[in-house]
């Protein structure tokens, strides 16, 4: 179990309550679930990293429990009850210095401190669809929902939000434009927040500017946008809607740069890799897909028998296959181009590491030059 969980670079939560780990390099998926007692009220609503080193995955379920899964040990280490199922589903999960932040659909945002049972509570309005944490300033969170505009909260001042957005002006018929924030993200290196709505709009808000209305608005498609993610390169955003259409939008002008094809069902979870130009998407069609952002092709597609709710990517390189990546092997990968040199260095390494090095080698070879060095059949 432990070695399987250490291989996985993508974590997916499903509606049946199973946490699935996928290793893209080995093209295998593993189910991690407690015993064989599955039930629908353990359906995974949110996934989040428990710590910055990405060794713990926090799994929030419909019945209000937050389970901690350790990737190194391969088992669920802790379970916490953070609310009941009557409060609504989890819409956001985040961690700041030893405190857990959870938000549910009824708008109750709670900060659970470790050790003590009392919580700091914030009421974020009704019908909250999503809560996200600012990756650079860990005590800021944003919430938004149906008829509940974007609000940015500072957890040290729980009474009022530090930024409340204002709805756009009435449309050309002088009717109020309905608002429905489905997902949001903080743009790194600036104060801005980008949201996607159920009325197929993508909006950028800037708390630093005097206007509370959106700074930029773009539209895509005709169906509600359910998920949003910011890739490593600036100035673009990937959005997905309920029809299975994924698009990359340009933030400078608000135009569609391109669409990613392949999804057949509504997108439930979307995440871009922090450094590589890859985006992982999961949805109701029971597939996890990884697309490349540069050429918009499908890199990986994995069938994961249940409907998928959320996806979590680890920051490490997805093609890197295994655990215990030794220093030698990393050097081998970085050298890249000169294959002969690499073969020479390989002979000098011991048996076990050699196996892994050859695996690396195979990955590099297949990517880089497609030579027929595959005669070395390493038993994986």
């Amino acid at each position: 179990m432990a070695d399987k969980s250490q291989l996985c670079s993508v974590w997916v939560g499903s509606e049946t309550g199973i946490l699935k780990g996928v290793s893209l390099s080995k093209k295998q998926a593993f189910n991690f679930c407690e015993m064989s007692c599955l039930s629908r009220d353990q359906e995974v609503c949110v996934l989040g990293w428990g710590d910055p080193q990405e060794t713990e995955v926090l799994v929030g379920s419909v019945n209000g429990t937050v389970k901690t899964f350790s990737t190194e040990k391969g088992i669920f280490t802790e379970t916490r009850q953070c609310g009941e199922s009557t409060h609504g589903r989890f819409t956001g999960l985040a961690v700041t210095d030893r405190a857990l932040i959870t938000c549910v659909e009824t708008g109750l945002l709670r900060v659970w401190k470790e050790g003590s049972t009392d919580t700091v509570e914030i009421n974020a309005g009704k019908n909250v669809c999503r809560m996200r944490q600012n990756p650079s300033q860990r005590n800021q969170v944003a919430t938004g929902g149906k008829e509940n505009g974007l609000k940015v909260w500072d957890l040290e001042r729980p009474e009022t939000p530090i930024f409340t957005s204002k709805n756009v002006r009435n449309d050309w018929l002088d009717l109020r434009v309905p608002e429905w924030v489905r997902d949001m993200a903080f743009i790194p290196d600036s104060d801005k927040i980008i949201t996607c709505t159920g009325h197929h709009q993508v909006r950028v808000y800037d708390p630093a500017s005097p206007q509370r209305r959106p700074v930029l608005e773009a539209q895509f498609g005709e169906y509600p946008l359910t998920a949003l993610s910011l890739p490593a390169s600036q100035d673009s955003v990937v959005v997905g809607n309920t029809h299975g259409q994924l698009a990359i939008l340009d933030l400078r002008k608000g135009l569609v740069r391109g669409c990613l094809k392949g999804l057949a069902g509504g997108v439930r979870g979307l995440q871009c890799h922090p450094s590589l130009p890859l985006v992982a998407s999961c949805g109701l069609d029971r597939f996890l897909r990884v697309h490349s952002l540069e050429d918009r092709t499908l890199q990986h597609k994995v069938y994961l028998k249940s409907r998928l709710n959320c996806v979590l990517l680890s920051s490490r390189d997805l093609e890197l296959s295994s655990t215990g990546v030794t220093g030698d092997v990393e050097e081998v990968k970085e050298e890249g181009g000169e294959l002969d040199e690499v073969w020479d260095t390989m002979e000098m390494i011991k048996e076990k590491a050699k196996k892994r090095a050859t695996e690396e080698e195979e990955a590099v070879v297949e990517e880089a030059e497609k030579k027929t060095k595959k005669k070395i059949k390493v038993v994986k």
Partner: protein
Amino acid sequence: MDVVEEHDIQDKPTKKKTKKPKKQPKPQHENGDDSMVEKTDPEHVDAPAEFSFPPTFSVSEIKNKQRRHLMFMKLKQEKRKFEQKMAMKKKKKKERDALGDKAPPKEVPKTIENQRVYDETTVNPEDEEVAFDEGTDEFSAYFNRLTNPKVLITTSDRPRGRTVRFCNQLATVIPDAHVYYRRGLALKRVIPQCVARGFTYLMVINEDRKVPNGMVLCHLPDGPTAHFKVSSVRLRKEMKRRGKDPTEHSPEVILNNFTTRLGHSMGRLFAALFPHDPQFVGRQVATFHNQRDFIFFRFHRYIFKNEKRVGIQELGPRFTLKLRSLQKGTFDSKFGEYEWVLKRHENDVCRRRFNL
């Protein structure tokens, strides 16, 4: 692999055999029902008689010499081809018989169904996760015998005669079905009322240019909504050699060829339309046959002439369905989440890849 035969028909092993030859479905379904029944092997008929001339015609009656010559040459060519073909067949048969046991196995002709690209979502019967998923999905209430199906059939606004007759015939085929006139009501408002009155299915037949062309099938408490394209509708009057009208007995249900995960969901959707226990006294059977992503619906009455031979009569309407989208939740085309959407351009890439 044929999956999910709804009811236990182990006592009727030969029934399918007699059905299959009739069922050579044409996915393009442009032709009428004639093609289905009459696709018999023309080999035993005289091959040269391919033109539809009156039987007393002979080449020597044409007065124009050139034309007579041409016709005669054509006739000779065809006869020659036919003879060659027969000769080849005979030779092959002789070789086969000569080799006896050592003969190479008979070559199976390649069909699109044979060449179908393996779909990774094909359900493995022993898969626990899929079994759990199906055991707790929206249809579990029906399959655990907690509810009985009750169907409401309606149409789009202001239906014309053909659609109305189709709905009425569907209501005779599906037990406990009620037909209501639409009166321009919004479906989103109709649905809570149906739920309050205990309906389990809402079926809306959409009409275009006086002909039914679409169907929305919505499983009621909170279940999935499937949107189909309906084509090739044949009402009872248009059926050849049909039997008398169907009786009130619950039919058996046969679901053929729903192999993938999506196919399974569809199969369960159709199965939940009919009551659990078929009344074998009625000897009626409703078949949903999936081939190349088209679902063919037929309604028959069977009778066992003796242990091995079954006679069937087709009653009831027949139509073909093609799934266009499956939406999670009750009907909400604007804001609902879709589990599967037919995207034509992505499906046109490979002719041998199917979804159901």
